[in-house]
């Protein structure tokens, strides 16, 4: 009989064959992720009297609250503040809600986790896919609203597609990492929610990042916070009819790809230990 060996040595020797032994192909995994996302959205809608209408109602209520505070109470000087706020807030909600839902998705699916040998990325990616479907509806509604009000600029609307693609990359990287750290310690859930609150205040959701007087501070804010760059880029395209800055967009793309690469690497390393970690607590 072979002698016992430690988990580190086991992983080094057997990690690749172990991952290849998962029974589904890439196409099957993509089908599964999409089905999980659509079924979850259907199940969620069935729980509420207003069903799918909440997809629009929830962000609309958020915007109404922020508008009441910043425009009516604090008298913001930003022109067309309602639309300015709507673009920022809807972009932020897509990011924050997707990441938060992804963060507890593996824990939520512990039933499935205990039944099938499956790549654990499936669950956060399904949560992220749900967010994407919601955003498609919400963004369509926003575009119609901007068109009808005459406040929108549509010269560069097609730039929304690569911008949304980059945002999906960013959400996937952050969401996958968030789900993994929550598997190890549930305490991270609190930190992630606190982090979202922090990002809400520093990403220019209800203020204009270009209004920061100090050019260096403004640049560092955009470089260090990909979400601020994203929100500003959506506003440039939809409200100001101009293209986002190429250098900032390149940095954003690199940041998103880097985060996603780290996440993919982390799942390759920790894949086989996630189920024990989640199911034994």
């Amino acid at each position, binding site marked *: 009989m072979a002698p016992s060996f430690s988990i580190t040595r086991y992983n080094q020797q057997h990690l690749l064959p*172990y991952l290849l*032994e998962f029974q589904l192909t890439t196409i099957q995994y993509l089908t599964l992720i999409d*089905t999980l996302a659509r*079924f979850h959205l259907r*199940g969620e809608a069935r729980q509420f009297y207003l069903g799918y209408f909440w997809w629009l109602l929830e962000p609309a209520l958020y915007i109404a609250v922020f508008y009441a505070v910043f425009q009516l109470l604090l008298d913001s000087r930003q022109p067309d503040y309602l639309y300015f706020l709507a673009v920022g807030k809807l972009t932020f909600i897509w990011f924050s809600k997707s990441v938060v839902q992804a963060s507890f998705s593996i824990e939520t699916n512990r039933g*499935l986790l*205990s*039944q*099938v040998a499956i790549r654990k990325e499936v669950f956060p990616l399904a949560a992220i896919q749900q967010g994407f479907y919601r955003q498609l509806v919400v963004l369509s509604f926003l575009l119609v609203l901007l068109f009808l009000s005459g406040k929108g600029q549509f010269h560069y609307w097609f730039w929304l597609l690569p911008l949304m693609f980059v945002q999906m990359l960013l959400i996937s990287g952050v969401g996958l990492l968030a789900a993994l750290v929550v598997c190890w310690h549930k305490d991270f859930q609190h930190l992630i929610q606190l982090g979202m609150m922090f990002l809400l205040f520093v990403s220019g959701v209800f203020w204009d990042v270009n209004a920061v007087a100090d050019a260096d501070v403004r640049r560092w804010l955009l470089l260090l916070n990909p979400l601020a760059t994203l929100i500003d880029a959506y506003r440039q395209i939809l409200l100001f009819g101009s293209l986002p800055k190429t250098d900032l967009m390149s940095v954003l793309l690199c940041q998103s790809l880097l985060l996603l690469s780290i996440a993919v690497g982390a799942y390759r390393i920790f894949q086989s230990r996630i189920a024990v970690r989640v199911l034994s*607590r």
Partner: protein
Amino acid sequence: MTHLLTLDNVSLSFDMGANSRYDALSGIRLQIAAGDRVGVVGANGSGKSTLLKIMAKIFEPETGHVEWAPNVTASLLTLGLGFRPDLSGRDNAYLSCLLMGLSSKAASSCLDEIESFCELGSFFDQPVKFYSTGMRARLAFGSALLNQSQVLLIDEVLSVGDSVFREKARQALEERLSPERAAIIVSHNLGQISSLADTAIVMERGEISASGAVDDVLNVYQRSTVSSR
């Protein structure tokens, strides 16, 4: 004899917090060949389900080694822990098919067969949260039946539901246990183990305390449980 699965000195412990660990499995050595039908008995917490999860690749051993023969797949049949309560039986069955590796088209075409086997009537299109335990068991078993894995790991799926369905499920399982496949059956129902398995093992505190021909092992196990009371 072709070994489908070999467990060599496999151990696994769980972190219980506060710097304590619980030894769920310890030094397990087991070989499963094509055509084997192995019953697994033991008290609650003895490591039966953890053993099946190791075999199903859900858990990886902490020490030791598990070797699957090339292209051999093992699937765990349990009581639908993964069912989503807000989805209908049909949706959950479809999802189960996808999780077993069926394509979207193949999964859709299996739904009629599952519906017919489960005998849930109009409940098949109702959310699972309205199902009784027996109805959930029917759905779980009906969905799991389509599994094509060479190693079937059966965890208590034959112990619930009414007696008519239990017998139907037992017969359906019997039909699927071909000589090319192996089955490891966990149950507290010793009669079921005796009728489905050829050999058996007894799990005690994460270790195999007895193994051999099914009736001999069950006799030993029954005597030990009676004497321990």
